[in-house]
Each structure stands twice: as structure tokens, then as C-alpha cells.
């Protein structure tokens, strides 16, 4: 009896171990804010699974990882909202059941159907957003000056400015400073951005990644970071209450990140549950205040899950007004993207 009973059980156990679908591990290709255990552990405990996270930076790097992977290697993808279409075009994202996503509770601007949907089908859902504007130390600069982008190149702050090293938002900001909407950046208008970009570079001390920009602002190496925002200063707020951010009169850029299920996932149901957890108020609050960087939750119902202090740092009450004043990242096609990157590279080597 024993042998007859044990053999099927053993076979079933081996099958469970060898079949990825039953492995109870979810593989997610994410940005660093998803690696906060406070965000991931509640999901792991609820579903009894292990979430394996791999961080990446830059859409090109993320798509390259997917390109080099086998179908089924990845279950969940976090991606820049403006690049969802690119991932769909490459066949990396699976369709999501739109009726199971709480987008009716989202800030209207954050539903972003034009980005998250392709040909009427939903492939991703916005999970977090924020602004690329101007961060500054309010004890070192005149906050009134920060309401006007022109003050950055007026000479008053020469050598005290840091530029966030990401061409899309900063070129978008420069365009807004010239009265050009981000959606109107074309190969023709790009040329008019060169001089103001170079002038900004000449007035700045450094062009740096997130950590270096935060370090520079926190240590007084620079007093202003162009391209910064709540995501840059919020995690420093406890130690540096003098750091602040604003959206100047010319406007700011709104960044947004989306999450979706990877096409070919061997456990799409579990991957969908992960997506639903992330966009639930509980997941949104933890994602918004991740130890890597803060940002605004896309789900407007998240307010109750945030503490008063967290809401103050995120300027939660001001979101409707801020959203009206912010424009989306430029969405360049391949040729414009190349031209923008070439201009950025030229600026770096100025």
C-alpha cells in the first residue's frame, strides 16, 4: 500500500517542483521602488509565493533583458508609461482584463488610456506618478525665483545647479521654458532647444543620476536640481526639511510608470493578482512611500492609507491643481529619440 500511495505523491511533488506554473515564484522586472520589502512581503504572505525582483534602469535596458529571455522567464513588467506602446509593439505585454482594474478610482489624468491601451485593448495600468520640475533648498535660493525657469539661466545661480541626467524630462522642461508643449517637440523644433539647453548646462555644476543629485542637494554641493521633484526630495525630507520642490509658471513634466503582465507568463493569474495588489490602496500607499523613491499613487482612493505626514510631503491635497499644470513626457519616435539623445550627449560633452 505504502509504495502505491507514495509513488503518485512523489510524482506529483516532482511535477510541482519541475513545472514553472506550480513553482509559486513570481518573476518581476521592476524599478527599484518595488524592491522595498514593506511593499512585497504582504503580497508574498497573502498568496504564499516568493516574488523574485530584478531591477533595471532605462526602457532600452529593460527591453533588452526581455529580448534575451525565454518566454515564461518573466511574469510582471514595470515600465515607463510612455513606453508601454513600445513594449506592446515588441510583443512583451499581455492583454489585461480592464474590468478587474480599479481605474475608475484613479485621478482622471492617470488612467492614460492612450498609453496603456493599444487598439482598444488594455496592456498595462498606471501605478505611480510624479513630476520632473525643480527641486531646491529653500534656505539657499529665493523660492520666488523657482517659480520662473528663466531665473535658472539669469546668472544668479551659476554653478549652483544640478541637472538630472535623463534627457526626456529635462528636454521637456527646456521646451516648456521656450513655450513649446512637450507633445510639440519634433525634429524641427528640437533645434530651437539647443541654445537654451547649452545655456542651462553652462550655468550648472553637474549632470547626475538620482543618488548623486540627492547627495549634491543634501550636502549643499548644489542648491537646485533641474528635473527633480517630489521623488528626489521626499525621501530626504525627514533629515532635510529645507528641501522643497515646485512647478514653475511655465509648467512641469509628469512622469508615470505602468505595470503589466508579461506575454508568455506561465502564471498569468498570479501575475494579474500582483498587478491588482499594486494598484489597490494598500499597495499604492506602500509603493508611493517606497524606501527607494517616493511618488504619487495613481489611485486617488489611496489618501486614507497614507499618514498625515506622508500626505503633506506628497502635497496630496494639491494634486488636482498640479496635474492641470503638468504635461506628459515627450513621446519621440525612433528618429526623434535618436536626435534628442544626440543633443543630450553633445550637451554632456560641452
Amino acid at each position: 500500500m505504502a509504495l502505491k500511495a507514495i509513488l503518485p505523491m512523489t510524482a506529483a511533488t516532482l511535477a510541482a517542483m519541475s513545472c514553472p506554473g506550480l513553482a509559486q515564484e513570481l518573476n518581476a522586472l521592476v524599478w527599484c521602488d518595488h524592491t522595498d520589502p514593506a511593499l512585497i512581503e504582504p503580497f508574498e504572505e497573502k498568496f504564499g509565493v516568493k516574488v523574485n525582483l530584478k531591477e533595471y534602469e532605462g526602457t532600452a535596458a529593460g527591453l533588452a533583458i526581455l529580448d534575451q529571455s525565454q518566454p515564461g522567464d518573466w511574469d510582471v513588467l514595470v515600465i515607463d508609461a510612455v513606453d508601454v506602446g513600445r513594449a506592446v509593439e515588441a510583443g512583451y505585454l499581455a492583454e489585461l482584463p480592464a474590468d478587474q482594474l480599479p481605474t475608475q478610482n484613479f485621478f482622471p489624468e492617470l488612467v492614460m488610456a492612450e498609453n496603456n491601451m493599444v487598439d482598444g485593448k488594455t496592456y498595462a495600468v498606471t501605478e505611480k506618478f510624479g513630476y520632473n520640475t525643480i527641486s531646491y533648498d529653500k534656505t539657499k535660493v529665493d523660492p520666488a525665483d523657482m517659480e520662473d525657469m528663466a531665473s535658472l539661466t539669469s546668472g544668479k545661480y551659476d554653478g549652483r545647479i544640478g541637472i538630472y541626467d535623463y534627457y526626456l524630462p529635462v528636454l521637456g522642461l527646456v521646451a516648456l521654458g521656450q513655450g513649446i508643449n512637450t507633445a510639440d517637440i519634433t525634429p524641427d523644433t528640437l533645434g530651437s532647444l539647443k541654445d537654451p539647453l547649452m545655456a542651462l548646462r553652462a550655468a550648472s555644476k553637474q549632470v547626475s543620476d538620482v543618488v548623486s543629485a540627492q547627495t549634491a542637494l543634501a550636502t549643499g554641493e548644489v542648491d537646485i536640481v533641474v528635473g527633480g521633484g517630489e521623488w528626489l526630495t521626499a525621501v530626504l525630507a525627514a533629515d532635510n526639511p529645507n528641501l522643497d520642490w515646485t512647478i514653475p509658471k511655465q509648467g512641469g513634466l509628469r512622469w508615470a510608470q505602468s505595470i503589466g503582465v508579461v506575454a508568455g507568463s506561465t502564471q498569468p493569474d498570479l501575475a494579474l493578482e500582483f498587478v491588482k495588489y499594486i494598484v489597490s490602496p494598500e499597495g499604492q500607499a506602500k509603493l508611493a512611500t517606497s524606501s527607494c523613491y517616493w511618488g504619487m499613487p495613481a489611485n486617488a482612493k489611496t489618501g486614507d492609507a497614507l499618514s498625515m505626514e506622508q500626505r503633506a510631503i506628497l502635497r496630496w491635497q494639491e494634486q488636482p491643481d498640479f496635474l492641470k499644470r503638468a504635461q506628459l513626457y515627450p513621446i519621440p519616435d525612433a528618429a526623434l529619440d535618436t536626435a534628442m539623445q544626440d543633443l543630450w550627449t553633445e550637451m554632456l560633452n560641452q
Partner: protein
Amino acid sequence: MGWGLVAPALLWTAAFFVLPFAAMVALSFAHMEGREVVRGFDPGNYIRIFTDWTMLKALLNSLEITVVVTVVSVVLAWPLAAIIAFRVPARWQRLALLLAVLPFWTSYVVRSYAWLLVLGQNGVVNKALLSLGLIAEPLEIAATRVATVIGFVHFFVMLLTLTIYANLIQLSPNYARAAADLGAGRWQTFRHVILPLTLPGVVTGAFLTFVLCIGDYITPQILGGNAELTLPQLIMLQLGRSGNFPLASALSVVLMAVVTLAYFASSRWLRLDRV
């Protein structure tokens, strides 16, 4: 029998160097159409590297920084290695070497960020100079080429100290005695006897410094504040941002060519067995 023993190493080298390198060279002759890589034999990437001033300048920046770092590191490491080899009692030399390489135990990235704090406007260096009254205004060191060089030199002095020390302790004291017997002064002995005999250690360390320095993009990015682009940073921009793998491959081939030239220039004195 002989081939059997060599085969694993040959297979390893073929699988993990020769084949990937050949693939990289082949890819460097491809080009981009939109976001698609189109394979073929198009020398456009190489033409662009040597005609586009931004790219050429990145190569020149890399060479300038690397040469300065290598020279400064040798100048600092040689006396340090000599003091450990000749002045420190034999029983303490192991501890002295350990102390010399202690910073190696720290993460490279963490060490770079630590230097950023040391060299910043409110960092240790500026605070010390200001409190001593040596300067009236903080020096602009962080986010400059000087900061990049300091970060590199700190790292590579450790490496060079090891290679030069390994060379120095093999020198018989009889060389110096013979030179003295023949009437050579201390400077002449150093110039004409000791220094030439330590060239293998110096050149080996210098070559390793050159290779590691010219291929690094972390230090210029963190300490240099992107104040200027180096070749590895340009490669990273093509890989991480543009997804332009053909151009990144061509830039990498150019980088390897520079390292190969450095190897041939120093091969006469290279003694990697001294490391």
C-alpha cells in the same frame, strides 16, 4: 596529452572571449533602422566615431584621464612600495601591505560616493582648508576631472604598490652595494640600477591601471558629475538609453584597440608573473 591539458582553457577562452568578441565585431558593422538592428557590413559606426567631435572628445577625455591617473599613481606608489620593501622591518611588511590595500575591501561604488562627500563644498577637505585659513572660499573639487583623478588614483595606487613591491623585494641588495663600490651616489644608483630593475613591476602595474581606468565609467559618472563624457560612459549611454548596440559595439572595439596598442607599447617590460 599536452593538448588535452590545454583544451579546457582553450575552450573556455573560445567560448567566453573569442566568440563573444567576434559577435561584437560583427555587430559593430550593423546599423539601426528605427529601433531595429540591421545586420550587414556598414562601416558607418566607425566613421561616425572618428568624425563626430562628441565621440572623438570622449575618446580623448578617456585617454587624458587614464594617462594622468597612471602617471600620478606610479609616482605615488613607487616610494610607498620602496618604503614598505626597504624601510619597514620584514616582520611588519605583511601588515604594512595589508594596510596599504585595506581600501580595496570597500565596495567600489560606496568608496566613490564617500569621496564625493570628502571632496564636496562642505566636505572634509574644504572644511579643513577653511579652518586652517588656507582658503577663503570652498574649492570646487567635486564634479570635476580633478575629483575623478583623485578617486582613480586612490584605487590604483594600491594596485601599483603591490606590483612594484613584488618586484622590489626580489632585488638583491648586492646591486646597490656593487653600484656604491663603483662610486655611484644614491641618486645614480636609483636612476641607473634600481629603477630600471623595477621597470617590469612598474609597467605591469601601469598597464593594469591603464586597462582598468580606461574601461571604467562609474568613477567619472559619480565623482566627475558628468562634467565630461568618457568613452565607457558613451558606451553605456548607447546601451542603456539608446539601445544602439551596433554603435556601442563599435565604441567597444575602439576601446579594445586602444588597450591592445597600450599592450604592445608596454609588452617589452610586461611581466604579468610578477603580479
